[in-house]
């Protein structure tokens, strides 16, 4: 009953912003540009490559049982890295469970991401220090808090002052599937009504687990934002330069008091939804192959080679750096120790809660008792 009318070129949609096409050829765009110095360009490549390596290493760790689950980023590196580069230190990010490129860009220790998927904690970084909210697993539930945070920025007067070190924006991430949640619509609508300094970055990776984006919408997703009076921009999510430029403009606009923007990054989830998923049940390898042609890293490499920015030396350095990262991750994950069980009682509340205290005491007493029983039992085997 759907007509599959979702594509970046559907009539009424603006053209997709693209600066670098699938074969790595640079194009001009009337509004968007990305003047970057060679070392900045190489920095982008480095981030792309390291993210991919991080991801594949994590996937491997999951396969060997070191992680309980992995949520991969393959194919979405440009969308995440391009956007991350447009962020300023004072900005605040609200990522999904898949936005490792966003998280890593905030100098979060990669092991802090991996500890989530090992089941050690729900994210070990300090959200305030790093300017990045913990991963939100309830689809779309990070969006209203992101808007609220932006309303706080507004009340702090940290917007529209013209001071680049002060003006602040919020970058809120969501997937294509997330656009269907009522809370996502509420977030867009509030952001528009309050003119909050927030940019919504929707990575349309074409799938929400097994469901294609046509199941969520008949028209391109960014039109939903236009419907509440916010500009919607469609950008090639596999083009790191376009991503950088589009996100930068939107963040600048937000920081200056110009209001929110919704960005739909047209990309693809190359791997499974998570390591628990089996995409062969629902999608075609032909589709995957077509997207492989649009690989965000390949095209950027081609471009950098053609520009003479990238040489073998850098590639070698980068390979070594990747290897070191992988090694650090492997060792770090394998070295993670399980948390102290009693820690589960520690942070439910900031202030004492009688029942939690009571449960904690009973838990400790029972534990001590069992330790004692174990010692006393001749076989040492407990009950």
């Amino acid at each position, binding site marked *: 009953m759907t007509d599959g009318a979702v594509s970046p070129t559907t009539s009424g949609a603006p053209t997709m912003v693209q600066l670098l096409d699938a074969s790595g050829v640079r194009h001009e765009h009337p509004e968007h540009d990305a003047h970057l110095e060679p070392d900045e360009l190489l920095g982008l490549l480095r981030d792309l490559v390291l993210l991919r390596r991080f991801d594949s290493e994590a996937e491997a760790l999951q396969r060997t049982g070191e992680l309980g689950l992995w949520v991969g980023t393959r194919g979405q590196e440009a969308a995440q890295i391009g956007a991350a580069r447009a962020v300023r230190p004072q900005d605040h990010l609200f990522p999904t469970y898949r936005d490792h490129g966003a998280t890593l860009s905030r100098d979060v220790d990669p092991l802090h991401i991996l500890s989530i998927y090992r089941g050690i904690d729900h994210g070990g970084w300090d959200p*305030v220090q790093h300017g990045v909210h913990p991963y939100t697993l309830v689809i779309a539930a990070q969006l209203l*808090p992101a808007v609220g*945070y*932006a309303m706080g920025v507004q009340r702090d007067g940290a917007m529209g002052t013209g001071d680049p070190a002060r003006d602040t924006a919020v970058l809120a991430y969501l997937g294509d599937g997330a656009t269907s949640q009522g809370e996502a619509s*509420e977030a867009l609508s509030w952001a528009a009504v309050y003119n909050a300094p927030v940019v919504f970055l929707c990575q349309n990776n074409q799938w929400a687990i097994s469901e294609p984006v046509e199941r969520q919408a008949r028209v391109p997703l960014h039109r939903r934002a236009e419907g509440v009076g916010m500009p919607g921009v469609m950008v090639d999510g596999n083009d790191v330069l376009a991503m950088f430029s589009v996100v930068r403009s939107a963040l600048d606009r937000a920081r200056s008091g110009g209001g929110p923007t919704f960005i739909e990054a047209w990309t693809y989830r190359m791997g499974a939804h998570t390591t628990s998923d089996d995409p062969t049940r629902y999608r075609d390898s032909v589709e995957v192959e077509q997207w492989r042609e649009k690989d965000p890293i390949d095209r950027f490499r081609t471009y950098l080679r053609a520009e003479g920015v990238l040489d073998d030396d850098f590639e070698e350095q980068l390979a070594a750096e990747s290897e070191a990262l992988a090694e650090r991750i492997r060792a770090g994950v394998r070295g993670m120790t399980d948390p102290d069980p009693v820690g589960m009682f520690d942070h439910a509340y*900031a202030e004492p809660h009688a029942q939690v205290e009571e449960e904690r005491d009973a838990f400790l007493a029972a534990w001590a008792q069992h330790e004692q029983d174990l010692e006393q039992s001749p076989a040492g085997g407990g009950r």
Partner: protein
Amino acid sequence: MERAGIQRMALGKAVNAGLRVAMERDPRVLLMGEDIGKLGGVFRVTDGLQKDFGEDRVLDTPLAEAGIVGTALGMSLRGYRPVCEIQFNGFVFPAFNQIVTQLAKLRARTRGRLTVPVVIRMPFGGGIGSVEHHSESPEVLFAHTAGLRVVAPSSAHDAYWMIQQSIASADPVLFLEPERRYWEKGDVDVDLGPGEVAPLHRARVLRTGKDATLVAYGPTVRLALDTAAAAAEDGTDLEVIDLRSISPLDVDTVVESVQRTGRLVVVHEAPTFHGPGAELAARVQERCFYSLEAPVQRVGGFHVPYPAARYEDHYLPDVDRVLDAVEAALAA
């Protein structure tokens, strides 16, 4: 010696006065909700506050409860202390996802790195002859949810102080206002020092008695007191405890009383089935097993959707039903 600071005011007005003090004291305190600005809220609890503190601190929000709670949470991350109003108890459910999966869990999720001091104010309980969804008592849904605190004042004095304590709390607090008591006047001692105000989660013995203990909170506290007065005429001496907090529960105060009286009746408007009285009954039978002379009795709403207004006199616990339960407790 009489204290200078005693002021007589209605419960709703006391919440208003408490909000005002909190807002004066701390510029980070914000109010958010539907119609709380110019209108002053449908019960006028926020009357005059937008006028005095401006639209940036008293926000008339879009008509979306998830939006109210979700954005309040976000503002709290930026250092603000938002106090949300949910217009009526039956309209909190669109916000349930934000409350249960985000507000309640964010602190534990970040192992204490994030603090979300958001207060959600909400009228609760029935008895005002209203249409559907305006008379419910959903407190146990929040009390069962770890990470939240749930309190309910029963008097103007408590309303004044407990709202300030709730705002001062680093944890998210559901602040339940007994809607049919909004207009009930009481003495508020506004001059108490920090150490003089009862802790937010401490139950309070309102009347001592030796024959049985009556426990209530919010709107049923007055009912419990009325019942005790009626019972006194028959020579029955009831102790009345105002629980004040549903999460955490001050079980110690109740246990201490039951150890003396040997009998307990819990009274609330929420449906009894899987309701808040069950927890108290379960804990008291455990801790007072040898001092209980009769099973714990519960009086509450029935396990049916809150009925139309013309049924509510029969739906809501009244003096007769509480007396029946007291009799049952005394008969055993």
